[in-house]
């Protein structure tokens, strides 16, 4: 039953990541397309532009949600691949624990910076 819930969660997080990542990529690359149409938009990778987004709650929310859903989708996908390597049940439990620990560390690392930047502005 656990694997069924994980599979459903994998599909749901996959759809959410696709939507959030499409927003992120569009925001980062639209200035090239708009530039072709003669519309001048600031390069989103500059410090000023990046800090503007870091001070907007909606962007901080999108980044943290993308990170959380993306980490779950990626690490659960990696676990699905590792399940095919014919590891023993105990080895698989250890690997699952390592993946969870890895995900938690990267979640803390990834959420700290946007929250710290957002808090410093307010």
């Amino acid at each position, binding site marked *: 039953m656990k694997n069924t819930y994980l599979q459903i969660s994998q*599909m749901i997080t*996959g*759809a959410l990541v*696709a939507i959030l*990542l*499409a927003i992120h*990529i569009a925001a980062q*690359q639209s200035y*090239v397309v708009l*530039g*072709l149409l003669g519309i001048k938009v600031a390069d989103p*990778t*500059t*410090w000023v532009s*990046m800090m503007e987004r870091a001070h907007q709650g909606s962007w901080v929310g999108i980044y943290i949600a993308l*990170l959380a859903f*993306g980490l779950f989708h*990626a*690490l659960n*996908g*990696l676990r699905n*691949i590792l399940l*095919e*390597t*014919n590891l023993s049940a105990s080895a698989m439990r250890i690997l699952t624990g390592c993946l969870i620990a890895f995900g938690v560390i*990267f979640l803390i*690392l*990834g959420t*700290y*910076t946007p929250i*710290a*930047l957002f808090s410093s502005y307010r």
Partner: protein
Amino acid sequence: MSDKGPHQNYLGMRGWIWAGNYKLERYLYLLHRITGLGLLLFGLFHLTATTIFRAQGEAVWTSTISFLDNPLFRVGEFLVVAAFSYHAINGLRLIIQELGFALGKPVPPIYPFTDAIRRKRAWTLVILAAIMVLAVAFFIDFTVRGWG
């Protein structure tokens, strides 16, 4: 009494490449996994760059961005977008089929048989179209911004 337990995965990951009569969908699935692993690696690199370097202030951020602004990383950037596009579109197809849609009606195997490649030609065209769009976007971007 016959053994009714699950079959062992004797081939392991080698079975991804070849285990007999694989059809096009199986290779789409293989590419889905490869692009997924690639996106995971890029995601970790991207996360490190946008947290550790960003937290160190404007000077470090600007030097990181200027270091990454070279043809090698830009080709990599386009590969990431291509991998994401493929992974998302194929993932959507897998979700639709998992929910029981777009599977087609089952038909009895009557001679002459239609091979899988012909049946999946529509999907092949969609994938080729997506690759062509990305290739055009790639060259337009290089024309606008140059190689530098």
